[in-house]
């Protein structure tokens, strides 16, 4: 399919490269379909271009690259129920914010990762039930710099 974008022009995307979020993202329910863009020079980062919104593209990163040993803690039952129990069955991506385009201030949302079923290409944004990971983890923070575990009662 052809997608119009403001950043990359008009691009041709294979159907299997499109990921669907039936419920959209939290607070952005209209963003339901994304094309994953493979770009050179981007390392662990990827653009996820919104299919229906030319001006909207999200930056994502594999959270394991940000924090050693990153885990989807506390949602193992949900993952199994969604057939996502095995790590190989899923793609996990964390959203990156770059306020003002300044890399030094970039943050990663490790608390509410996007989890995608590789087979069906369907995804959900899942909120991890404890506070081990921050919603705005600074990219320039050193490794293992997670917040102290503050379990809510």
């Amino acid at each position, binding site marked *: 399919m052809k997608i119009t974008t403001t950043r990359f022009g008009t691009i041709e995307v294979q159907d299997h490269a499109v990921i669907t979020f039936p419920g959209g993202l939290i607070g952005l329910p209209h963003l339901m379909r994304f094309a994953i863009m493979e770009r050179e020079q981007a390392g662990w980062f990827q653009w996820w271009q919104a299919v229906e919104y030319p001006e909207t593209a999200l930056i994502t990163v594999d959270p394991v690259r940000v924090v050693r040993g990153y885990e989807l803690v506390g949602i193992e039952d949900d993952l199994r129920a969604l057939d996502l129990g095995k790590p190989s069955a899923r793609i996990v991506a964390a959203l990156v914010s770059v306020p003002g*385009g300044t890399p030094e201030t970039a943050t990663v949302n490790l608390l509410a990762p996007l989890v995608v079923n590789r087979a069906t290409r369907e995804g959900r944004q899942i*909120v991890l039930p404890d506070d081990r990971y921050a919603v705005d983890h600074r990219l*320039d923070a050193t490794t293992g710099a997670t917040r102290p575990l503050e379990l809510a009662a």
Partner: protein
Amino acid sequence: MLVLTRRVEEGIVIGDDIRVRVLEIKGHQVKLGIDAPRTTGVYREEIYRRIQEENRRAAQVPEHSGTLSTLWREWRSRGWGERKKP
């Protein structure tokens, strides 16, 4: 807003498949038990708002596509992210 008064062990039903039950009341804290389909997101309100805010920020990446390669260059030159074992 609909306002209902419930006692401990009582609950409410929302639609056909969501149940909320008051499990315990201690001082100013109320413990709720929620049964909902796994596909229904259930969040503490302040966390939901925070994620909503963060998602909107993430959706406002500056227009030029070079943002990503700049980010990656910074990542490598500053040694961000998980470090190799010493």
